[in-house]
């Protein structure tokens, strides 16, 4: 027994460390938000038909006129999108030009959503196959992208816009305009 060397404990210690690692990761799952890898890259080429009757559709060429914009990915069936509507209106009042991409939505549903929650958008494109959404690396609704005047994606905000995000987004928009 006296010959029992300390190295005999190494495998047990390794197993213990492994156990603690697995247990801690199980209890604390990694973040599940998938960030876009398109920041700093140009928007893909697209031309979406209008999502409802009273706003024009949205094409990449509309985004290259030198003016920075917020591109809001939303849907009438998305609950957090309704929650961020007041903040989008606040951004519009502060002078932000906001364009919308409506994901898998019917014109009548979009019209009802806008009638209920206000319409801060200058243009709304209908993305019925989530093609633009995938093209810009967005993984859900709502998400808001800052696009500069050359059509380059500058920033991505994932999830609904809260009160405290409004000044931050205005700042990002200003930076994109420089």
């Amino acid at each position, binding site marked *: 027994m006296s010959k029992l060397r300390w190295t005999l404990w190494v495998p047990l210690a390794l197993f213990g460390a492994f156990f603690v690692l697995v247990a801690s990761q199980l209890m604390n799952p990694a973040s599940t938000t998938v960030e876009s890898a398109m920041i700093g890259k140009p928007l893909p080429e697209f031309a979406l038909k209008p999502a409802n009757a009273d706003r024009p559709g949205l094409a990449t060429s509309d985004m290259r006129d030198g003016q920075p914009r917020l591109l809001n990915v939303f849907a009438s069936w998305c609950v957090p999108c309704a929650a961020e509507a007041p903040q989008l209106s606040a951004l519009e009042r502060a002078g932000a030009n906001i364009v919308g991409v409506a994901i898998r939505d019917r014109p009548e549903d979009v019209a009802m959503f806008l009638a209920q929650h206000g319409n801060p958008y200058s243009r709304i494109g209908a993305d019925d196959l*989530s093609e633009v959404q995938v093209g810009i690396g967005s*993984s859900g609704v709502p998400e808001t992208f800052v696009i500069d005047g050359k059509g380059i994606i500058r920033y991505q905000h994932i999830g609904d816009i809260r009160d405290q995000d409004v000044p931050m987004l205005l700042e990002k928009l200003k930076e994109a305009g420089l």
Partner: protein
Amino acid sequence: MKRLLLLIAFILAAPLSAQDSLPPAPYAYKQLDDPRQEAEAKALMETLRCLTCQGQSIADSDAPMAGDLRHQVRVRVARGEKPEAIRAWLIERYGEYISFKPEVTSSTWPLFALPALLLLVAVFVFRNKLGKKA
């Protein structure tokens, strides 16, 4: 009475629909006509992560966005694009996370190196033990 009414109201309330009402994309559930192309598309779809239900592949998930991605994959395969090019196109948009296919990168190399290292250690220990007995 008020409570009972409230309770009945809760029971009868229809859950708020958090899904879209649009039909699935044309190739979300429809296979390609060419069986060889469909097999290629299927194999690729099984190794792409659904962004809505992240533990599932887009082949397994019924989330609308997974359907739209299956449509994209099938249309691109039908157009003659190589599956690995489509995977690269998606990684360009979402990062490595969207692919289930293991790749050796700066952060994953220990996964490939460790088993080889452990095997070497095992061989070394084994030979030492045998050497002592002989």
